């Protein structure tokens, strides 16, 4: 089943010669948990060289970057916003911003935290604008269902959202911005602390501190 999943994620059919190796590696290391599985695959794909050849210093074409990371970004946005329309919009914006900024990305830097940084900044903007806009435009019956993605006053009414998940979402939404983003990157995207640090733009220690503060608060309320 796992083999099928790897195939499904395009790793198996990727022309990159490291792909099969990664496939095998993944199969060995994966734990039984579904989310863990997905993260590991994403992580390993992110580790692959992103320059075509070291000597030329020519970065990969943007399409390839997109192909490699679109699923992961979409999953993160969907989990962070809890809502399809927002996720789709944010997804498009993320890639447009990424395309515009791509030439300025140093060829040797890591591409994954960079993409997440764009995604969370857009989430933040949208939450801010959404809070402003929601007062005027949104009709009563769907008051908080759009626009307020990663925002503080999000109340989920989405499909199949279990009570625990809703509760937890609300608790996360009430955290201060930095802590909320750190926790989401850690547990929804599965980034490690170095990656979180470079995505948020802080030191590794403060990324760690933000996550642990947030966890402390969440545990107290749990």
């Amino acid at each position, binding site marked *: 089943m796992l083999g099928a999943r790897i195939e499904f994620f395009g790793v198996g059919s990727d022309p990159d010669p490291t792909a099969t190796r990664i496939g095998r590696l993944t199969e060995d290391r994966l734990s039984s948990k579904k989310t863990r599985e997905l993260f590991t695959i994403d992580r390993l794909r992110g580790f692959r060289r992103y320059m075509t050849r070291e000597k030329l210093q*020519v970065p990969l074409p943007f399409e390839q970057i997109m192909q490699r990371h679109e699923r992961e970004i979409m999953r993160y946005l969907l989990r962070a916003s809890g809502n399809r329309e927002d996720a789709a919009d944010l*997804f498009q914006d993320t890639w447009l911003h990424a395309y515009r900024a791509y030439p300025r990305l140093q060829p040797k830097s890591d591409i994954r935290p960079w993409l997440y940084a764009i995604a969370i900044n857009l989430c933040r903007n949208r939450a801010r604008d959404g809070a402003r806009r929601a007062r005027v435009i949104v009709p009563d019956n769907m008051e908080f269902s759009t626009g307020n993605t990663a925002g503080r006053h999000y109340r989920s009414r989405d499909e199949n*959202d279990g009570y625990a998940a809703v509760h937890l979402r609300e608790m996360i939404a009430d955290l201060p911005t930095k802590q909320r983003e750190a926790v989401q990157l850690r547990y929804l995207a599965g980034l490690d602390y170095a990656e979180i640090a470079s995505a948020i733009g802080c030191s590794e220690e403060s990324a760690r501190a933000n996550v642990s503060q947030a966890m402390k608060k969440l545990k107290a309320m749990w």
Partner: protein
Amino acid sequence: MKIETSLGSIGNEFAEETIEELLNRSRSRVDKALKRMRRPQAAVGLVKSPLGELLVAMSARGIVLNHYMDDAGDLAAKIGKLRLEFDLVEDQRAVKEVGEEVRLYLAGDAKALRQKVDLTLVAHSFQRKVLDKLQAVPRGAVVSYRALGAAVGAASSARAVGNTMHDNPVPIYVPCHRVISSDGRIGGYAGGIARKIQLLRCEGFQLDNAKPRILDSVVWGHKGTKIYCRGNCRTAARVDPARVFFFADSRQAKRAGMRPCKICRPV
């Protein structure tokens, strides 16, 4: 249930099929939006030539970048500049011709360099003017930095011309090796003096390796009068050095449409 487990399961209500379906819907939207802001494409590749390995970039309009590979520090900066204007694709086949042309050119084929030149990477209008003018300097002739500056109306900008030559994105094709000091020394070259000497030699100049300078045996021609003279002609004292070309020999001068001086009678 532990809170970490619950955190990990947030959003699990979205099955992978949902993600797949959303991706399928979003892809065409993203593609459409991206199409409007696309940068033009450029093919990048390495070619081997008698002057060493070259990194070459070709756009639809012609050759954009030609970089001597042994200069690795500069390479990152050049690629960085290139990325701002173009989407890069590695493609050896598109650039292979350039290596062949350079090889033929150094072997003595005067018309070997056929690619058009795309000066997109030259941002400054002064630099672009200088490089445009420079392309009019024929094979077998050289100008001084000062004279080139004067040709674009800035006679006191020899230094700026020098910098322009240093930053020239397309050496060999835009002949920045044909620019020398006013006193006859051959000046510098971004790819190293040895390459400049090699290029000038294949264009007919006789140069001494140890002390490379344009010899007195070459003739110089005046741009205004279209007359060429020996190096030691007595009229030399009167002419404006900013209006002077040097030619490898009389044949080159004649080919550029000049007549011999009646005082010094160059052969």
